[in-house]
């Protein structure tokens, strides 16, 4: 691996935001067995992890595909290339009921329009639900992924106070703290990693706020605090993230997404 930063190293000079986020997310999957992932960055991260830090990793898709062996990089979670040659394609009641709610997923990947300090997520509306400024797609399976995965990774392309907000406009997918307050016993830890272009926020479980634990080279804690809409806690042992290495980038570019479907 290189030791340079994404700004100043030869091969990494052209590291895109997608590549950076994918590589960093992939490393966090070390040792995990099952990941529930959507298409895009989560697929890239999981596929790269499969080639590096988590060789036994299985990606389970929301569409019901387990053990996919696609001939081409899939463009959607239901891409026909995910089905042909897969190890199993299971009905949605089994996928959501027995696999996800049954507790077989180690890491769920989610995105969101807004996240708060407890890792609660909003993917429903901006503004008031009844008269929204912007109607977003909604939960899909996100509420279930949050409720039933052992932990959840969030990859956020934007790190700004509108997305990292003190108060969500609407909570679509609550973490375990909110679940407990509602009298419902959660299975997992909720969001444990938030990966952005500025760094990594982390928490381990119930009762813990997201805390800044790692920075990309050249980014300061103050930069991240400025991009965060709440008074962000900073870890004492704040570390610097190793930039994407040559080996990681080569795998990502040559093996995982050679057609650069997502590595735009």
């Amino acid at each position, binding site marked *: 691996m290189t030791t340079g930063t994404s700004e100043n190293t030869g091969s990494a000079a052209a590291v895109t935001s997608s590549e950076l986020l994918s590589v960093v997310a992939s490393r966090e999957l070390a040792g995990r067995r099952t990941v529930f992932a959507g298409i895009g960055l989560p697929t890239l991260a999981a596929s790269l992890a499969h080639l590096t830090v988590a060789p036994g990793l299985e990606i389970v898709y929301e569409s019901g595909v387990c053990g996919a062996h696609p001939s081409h990089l899939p463009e959607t*979670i239901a891409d026909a290339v995910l*089905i042909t040659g897969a190890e199993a*394609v299971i009905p949605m009641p089994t996928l959501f009921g027995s696999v996800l709610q049954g507790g077989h997923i180690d890491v769920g990947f989610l995105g969101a329009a807004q996240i708060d300090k407890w890792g609660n997520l909003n993917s429903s509306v901006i503004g008031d639900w009844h008269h929204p400024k912007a109607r977003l797609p*909604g939960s899909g399976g996100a509420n279930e992924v949050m409720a039933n995965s052992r932990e959840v990774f969030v990859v956020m392309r934007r790190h700004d106070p509108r997305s990292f907000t003190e108060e969500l406009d609407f909570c679509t997918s609550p973490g375990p703290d909110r679940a407990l*307050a509602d009298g419902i016993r959660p299975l997992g830890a909720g969001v444990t990693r938030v990966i952005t272009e500025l760094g990594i926020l982390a928490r381990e479980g119930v009762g813990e706020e997201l805390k800044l634990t790692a920075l990309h080279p050249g980014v300061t804690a103050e930069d991240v605090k400025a991009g965060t809409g709440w008074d962000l806690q900073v870890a004492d042992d704040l570390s610097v993230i190793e930039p994407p290495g040559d080996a990681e980038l080569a795998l990502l570019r040559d093996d995982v997404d050679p057609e650069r479907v997502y590595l735009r």
Partner: protein
Amino acid sequence: MAVETATDKTMTMREAVGAYVRDGDTVSLEGFTHLIPTAAGHEIIRQGRRGLTVVRMTADIVVDQMLAAGCVSRLVSSFVGNSSAGSLGELRRRVERADPEPLAFEEYSHYGMICRYIAGAQRLPFYPLRSYGGSDLPGVNPAMRKVTSPYPGPDGESEQIYVVPPVNPDVTIVHAQRADRSGNTQVWGLTGVQAEAVYAARKAVVVVEEIVEDEVVRSDPNRTLIPAHAVDAVVVCPRGAHPSFAQGYYDRDNAFYRAWAGISKDKERLTAWLAEWVHGTRDHAEYVAKLGEEFWDGLAVGEAMSLPVNYGRRL
């Protein structure tokens, strides 16, 4: 032993929609990304149905089209987006600005929708699921309620869980690869929640790429996702799932998904699109022909045949 007396349930799409979809009905259209019953949605538009409640996990292009055509007054869904290819323009206008009229929207999560279908299929008063704890969804959807378990939880204390109510559509319409004339329907690839949606419905219409002889279906009874006793009408409609795909028949039209964001954002373009492609075609066969053979060649797929299994025969 038993004589063959299977009922022939085949009819045209026009006949099926005419017979089974009425103004004000609750209509489920299922198919999770795969096998979306688009052609059925288009025929509902052509026949000018009004006041429908549409139940569909992923409200996507076909729902946006039905909204734009004025067919729908209520939507029950868990994902209102154009896959990952942008927004649904008409849906956003309806929800954000009541333009041109309001849309009643019941928001669920995917598993909540699945559980509603299961409860409907299984004639259960409710279905429990480990979702929604702490979410704002129950605050805007009073159908999400809690039940206390009569068994102690892992900590010995009593345990609460959210439940959703059954949904029993007046009619469920699904698309599938093939069926026999009596409605035994075989699906492969992503099977979604179609079987449950059919069983939950009072009436069920199955739209298929092709009708096959009885022997084909019966050579592999485990492939029959929906038995004939649950089906009221069988409609042959090749390529009826476009722009979604039919595993082994044709691929997804990703370009159209991307284009829809632009078409639907502009009400005039959207109206023109409907006029040309839905109102301007007599039926789905015309729509398919209008797209042209070259277009369909671009979505053609090659062969990847399943290896057969032996069901055995008494010697």
